[in-house]
């Protein structure tokens, strides 16, 4: 039940691909966002966003602060619903199913679309309990299975060698970079298909950042990753596709190489060349 096949490629044939820049149509997509509008109270922060998220690829969302990229990311696992006074319209499809209509409750979405936050947020529990948390809340009781998954997740997050033998220590005994990798391990433990990362390395030192980026490079073999980043070099290094947001609108999306070398929109060019932002 736990192990989901990450490569069960459901292709959405009927949906016409929205304008997504230079993406190769041959690649399969995991998520599809159509005509998304989003409001905080009366204030509209996202305008008519349509975007494809490719299967087993890293999609980077870039743009200046306040452009709506984090808000957009949080619509992909219904995280915005935890904030009162928000409202949205449009469709978000995961393997062709509308995550806002075809699922009973948001928590079942979030086991398939995991998330790592900007500020590492380990629970005030032991390292083991942090990683096991997602299993426990999803009804897994088998102690041996939990132990195996915890070890597997920590290995996947490249943290196992640093914490083996101290799994009972508080998560707060870890360094900032380790805590963030713990949060990634925690997200991996429930075997999501998509991982959303909201500036996962922005609070970390260069060495820890490099470790996180290496990790993303490893994870993209098995997971679909969407990453919000302020750091353009990071976007260029880790992502296959890039989407540029500006003032709540998706200006341009396409292959990272193309966005950074031959952007089609003036705004994109100005931003990636550092003329504003």
């Amino acid at each position, binding site marked *: 039940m736990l192990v989901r096949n990450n490569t069960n490629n459901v292709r959405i044939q009927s949906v016409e691909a929205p304008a997504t820049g230079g993406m190769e149509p041959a690649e399969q997509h995991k998520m599809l966002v159509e005509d998304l509008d989003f409001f905080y109270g009366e204030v509209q922060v996202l305008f008519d966003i349509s975007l494809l998220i490719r299967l087993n690829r890293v999609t980077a969302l870039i743009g200046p602060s306040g452009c709506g990229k984090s808000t957009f990311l949080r619509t992909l696992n219904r995280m915005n619903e935890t904030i009162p006074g928000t409202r949205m319209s449009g469709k978000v499809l995961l393997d062709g199913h509308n995550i806002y209509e075809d699922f009973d409750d948001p928590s079942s979405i979030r086991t398939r679309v995991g998330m790592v936050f900007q500020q590492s947020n380990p629970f*005030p529990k032991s390292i083991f309990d942090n990683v096991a948390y*997602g299993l426990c809340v999803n009804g897994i009781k088998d102690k041996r299975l939990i132990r195996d998954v915890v070890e597997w997740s920590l290995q996947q997050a490249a943290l196992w060698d640093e914490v083996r033998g101290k799994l*009972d220590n508080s998560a707060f005994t870890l360094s900032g970079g380790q805590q963030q990798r713990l949060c990634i391990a925690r*997200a991996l433990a429930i075997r999501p298909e998509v991982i959303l990362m909201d500036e996962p390395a922005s609070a970390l030192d260069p060495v820890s950042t490099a470790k996180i980026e290496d990790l993303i490079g490893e994870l993209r073999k098995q997971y679909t990753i969407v990453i919000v980043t302020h750091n353009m070099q990071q976007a260029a290094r880790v992502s296959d596709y890039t989407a540029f947001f500006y003032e709540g609108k998706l200006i341009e999306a396409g292959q990272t190489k193309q966005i950074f070398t031959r952007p089609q929109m003036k705004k994109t060019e100005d931003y990636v060349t550092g003329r504003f932002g």
Partner: protein
Amino acid sequence: MSCMAQQTYVSSRAAVPNLEFRPKGRGIVPRGLTFAAVLIILLMLAIIMGNILVGGMGTISWEFLTHPPEQGMKAGGVFPAIFGTVALVILMVIAVVPIGVFTAIYLQEYTSPTSWTTRLIRVAINNLAGVPSIVFGLFGLGFFIAFVGGGIDTLFFPEEGPVWGQPAIIWASLTLALLTLPVVIVSTEEALRTIPRELREGSYALGGTRLQTIWRIIIPQALPGILTGSILAVSRGAGEVAPIMFTGAAYYLPYLPGKLNDQFMELGYHIYIMATQSPDIEATKPILYGTVLVLLLLTFSLNSVAILIRSRMRRSRVGAQ
């Protein structure tokens, strides 16, 4: 930039304030005033504690703590009152903590802080906190004893005399619980508010439902705050006399309360009785002093135990679990 502009403006008028000049003793007056205020408080506390300690120390003995009053309270001890106070406070905590904590969780986790129901509930809680304790006493008499207790009696014990429709420890503790409810709600809310959103979101992001998030993340995190509320409730409740004088406290009882509908003796009420109803003030004076000291020590030790638990919990929250 504006600072620079100002400087040129000032120098052109040749009226540069000499900031080097600081009269000696500047700040002595406010410092002295505030310190005097602190001194007054310390002095008052010292006088009160000193008076009680001097007057009461001689009375307190093992005998005094373990024996009932004798000879119209001119001799003997206060054991039934100690027992009654502890039982009362325990029952009160059992009632007030769950209700208060659930209310705070509802307000913080389930409603938007700006909705009118939330505001209405908050206004109600604030009003509850402002009601004088004697009014709670009368309310307890009218609602718990006459209405609830009386209702139980007419329904289940129509043949007997009053069984539940009379002053009893259960009604007194429920009245006290009502009185201390705002304390628990406010301090729990305070604790819930300080829990960072990132923790909740971390739980949601792993597929945790709201209930699981509250139960596994939020309540453990808020536990020290909840305990603080309970401590405050206990020290408030243990000292209140007005709410219990109509609802269950007895002048003198030859037995200890064993059932929820028994009456009980209580230290605060015992002090009140001895101070106002004694035929021989001079003879009861040492016992009165002793009783006051016992009440103070009891409240202090209840507080200290709770504070100890709280600080230990704070430490273990960060340390290994």
